[in-house]
């Protein structure tokens, strides 16, 4: 039990970066100086499967519990199919990036747009990130 209590803070504090997707747009360096701009939005979520597995290991001392195993199966069936990263409970967190990007560029001329879908994994939780880097033509 003590082992798990020691392990939990280590797992919670250690973050692993994950990159799922990157897309680079056209780059125009012919119209003037470029100023880097960036927008990053993220949504925290819980990795339910890992949490259930960890709970199972702690409560039943590694022997496995049928109830938790059933919950894991239900969760897996609910989340079947293609997906990127861990499921989040808010589908609008990346909605406003375009406006935020425009707000950083007075001239309105944006080039070299890099769309990055990445995440910070903290074992049982993760921050699902959408990052848009770009250059503003001054």
């Amino acid at each position, binding site marked *: 039990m003590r082992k798990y209590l020691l392990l939990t803070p280590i797992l919670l504090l250690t973050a*692993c*970066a994950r990159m799922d*997707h*990157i897309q*680079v747009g056209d*780059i125009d*360096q012919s119209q003037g100086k470029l100023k880097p701009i960036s927008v990053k939005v993220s949504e925290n979520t819980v990795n339910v499967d890992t949490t259930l597995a960890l709970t199972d290991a702690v409560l039943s001392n590694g022997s496995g519990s049928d109830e938790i195993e059933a919950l894991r199966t239900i969760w897996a069936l609910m989340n079947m199919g293609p997906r990127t990263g861990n499921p989040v409970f808010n589908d609008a967190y990346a909605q406003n990036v375009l406006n935020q990007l425009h707000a950083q560029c007075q001239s309105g001329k944006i080039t070299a747009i*890099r769309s990055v879908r990445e995440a910070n994994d903290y074992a049982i939780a993760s921050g699902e990130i959408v990052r848009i880097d770009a250059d503003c033509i001054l």
Partner: protein
Amino acid sequence: MIRKFCLLFIALTLSGCVGLNTVSMTQIPKDKGQLVEANAHDWVFLNFTTQNDFADRAVDNLKDLCVGGKISGVFTKHQTTSYFLVFKREVIVSGYCSLPKDRM
């Protein structure tokens, strides 16, 4: 026995399987210009890493290849090569550099 193990270990270490994560492409103009390509990578042990900054280097390298010009038809490839316990994450970007007439 040890020799066999060493040979197996070397073979495992040197052989890598590539997984193509994502690809994307932008529009290609009629006057394409010259093809330029840049890439950046980083090595991670057991997928433990705290940053994705290496991808920005690929874009910076591509920009350096077309200073004062316009790069279009940008093809981005994100791939991961898996070696024994070690992974190479790589971003390869290429595009057509079209320079202004006075710079050609």
